[in-house]
């Protein structure tokens, strides 16, 4: 290497390093700030108390339970539709058909759409037309629509990554396509699909805007009894606290963020664990 290129190499390395540490630094500052504000408010009472107008008594219990409900219902709704669509698009649909190409392109477009638009769609379709009101079900379906494209795309990629050889081995044994898909392709694609699902669901859990649009309340003084009940979720509760004038509520919001982050971190760790576990079975 000439001295000039060596110098260029060094400069380039430093540029990359600065951007990396810069990003980490900002993130660390943010986390430190939140922890500093909210940590002293974190207690068992905070987790198990209902919301209150008095900051000392307010807790995050209903929002936490609401988030768990929403997460479960969204998952139940989105997993069969997401995987089913991905299987159809990759394994059955004619790749030459213009219509299928159009559908695929638009799934990618939908994945990039601002979440507030899904909120408006949910408000019209689920809350008004289907008359679900401001229920957990309406919220979950709205969030389901929001993450469905992401899950379809992740599943498509995982299915496409299964080598053709695996399918041919199955077909050569006289298997039908559904048998090849169920017994050979899906087991090989599951780690990728699961990772995609969990990452998409954790995005849904962190979403605020579409739920505010459909009217998730932040003051819910009771636990939802079924999926037609009113509800609130962690990010909506945080948003509400952060908007109050009293400084104690800002600290409460920070404490809420810590709970939300812990929740999301757990989800992402599960995704990593699944990936690690299944990687060993790979061909």
């Amino acid at each position, binding site marked *: 290497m000439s001295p000039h290129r060596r110098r260029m190499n060094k400069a380039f390395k430093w540029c990359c390093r600065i951007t990396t540490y810069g990003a980490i630094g900002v993130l660390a500052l943010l986390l430190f700030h939140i922890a500093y504000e909210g940590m002293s408010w974190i207690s068992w009472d905070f987790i198990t108390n209902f919301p209150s107008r008095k900051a000392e008594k307010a807790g995050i219990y209903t929002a936490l339970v609401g988030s768990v409900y929403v997460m479960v219902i969204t998952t139940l709704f989105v997993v069969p539709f997401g995987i089913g669509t991905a299987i159809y698009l990759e394994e059955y649909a004619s*790749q*030459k058909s213009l219509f299928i190409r159009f559908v695929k392109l638009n799934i990618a477009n939908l994945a990039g759409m601002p979440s507030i638009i899904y909120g408006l769609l949910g408000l019209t379709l689920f809350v008004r037309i289907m008359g679900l009101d401001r229920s957990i079900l309406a919220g979950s379906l709205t969030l389901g629509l929001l993450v469905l494209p992401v899950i379809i795309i992740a599943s498509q990629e995982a299915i496409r990554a299964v080598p*053709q*050889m*695996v*399918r*041919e*081995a*199955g*077909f*050569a*044994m*006289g*298997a*039908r396509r559904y*048998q090849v898909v169920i*017994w*050979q392709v899906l*087991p*090989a694609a599951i780690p990728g699909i699961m990772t995609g699902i969990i990452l998409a669901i954790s995005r849904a859990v962190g979403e605020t805007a579409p739920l505010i649009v459909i009217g998730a309340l932040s003051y819910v003084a009771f636990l939802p009894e079924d999926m037609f009940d009113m509800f609130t979720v962690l990010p909506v509760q945080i948003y509400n606290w952060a908007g109050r004038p009293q400084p104690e509520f800002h600290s409460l919001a920070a404490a809420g963020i810590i709970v939300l982050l812990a929740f999301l971190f757990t989800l992402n760790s599960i995704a990593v664990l699944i990936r690690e576990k299944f990687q060993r*079975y*790979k*061909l």
Partner: protein
Amino acid sequence: MSDPILGVKNLSVYYGESQAVKHVNLGFKDKSVTAVIGPSGCGKSTLLRALNRMNDFIPNVRIEGEVKYRNQNIYGKSMDPAEVRRRIGMVFQKPNPFPKTIYKNIIWGPKINGYKFDPDELVEKSLKGAALWKEVKDRLHDSALALSGGQQQRLCIARAIAMSPEVILMDEPCSALDPKSTLSIEELIGEMRKNYCIVIVTHNMQQAGRVSDDTAFFYNGDLIEFGATKKIFTNPDNSQTEDYITGRFG
């Protein structure tokens, strides 16, 4: 000499506009081994995959002519391609066992096809048929991926045998294996020729000479010469065949 159990009549295979197999007529006899040789890209794999409809999975493939198995055109309207593949099995170039146990590799095919069978018996019989039983009988429930390449390839043969096919197609089954594993597969083919019609694609002239009864030489999609292996290898009619076999091109 027995009649061909599998034959192709005026068979042409196209990938889009380009023709990879050109008007080929050829018969494969039962209980015998036919070697298909020729330079890279001459259409050997394409021909082989046309014989059990594995080309169905490649977009833009078009087939003209007939492939007759027991006097029925396998491309006929009433033919079920899955049924064709049950009778005409295939072993691939790269060993591709399922990422499951040895035991499950064998019984998967018969199971999904609704065969009635005693699994233990079938596993033992198939593994013995592929000369693998002695090596793996104590680890039937271990992952097939823990086997050596040569063992994996014999497992793929055992898996094909388990379907009780009449024809087994092999596309360069030894090209990913070391000489010792290659030898054991060749010995196995020698044994299997008593029971099956075997069609094997190979780049290895010595191997074609050792294992096959008949040899078909292809060049550029055309069948140049077909006949008894002895004759093809000692006294071919066509000068291209001679040049290829003696290594002057290809």
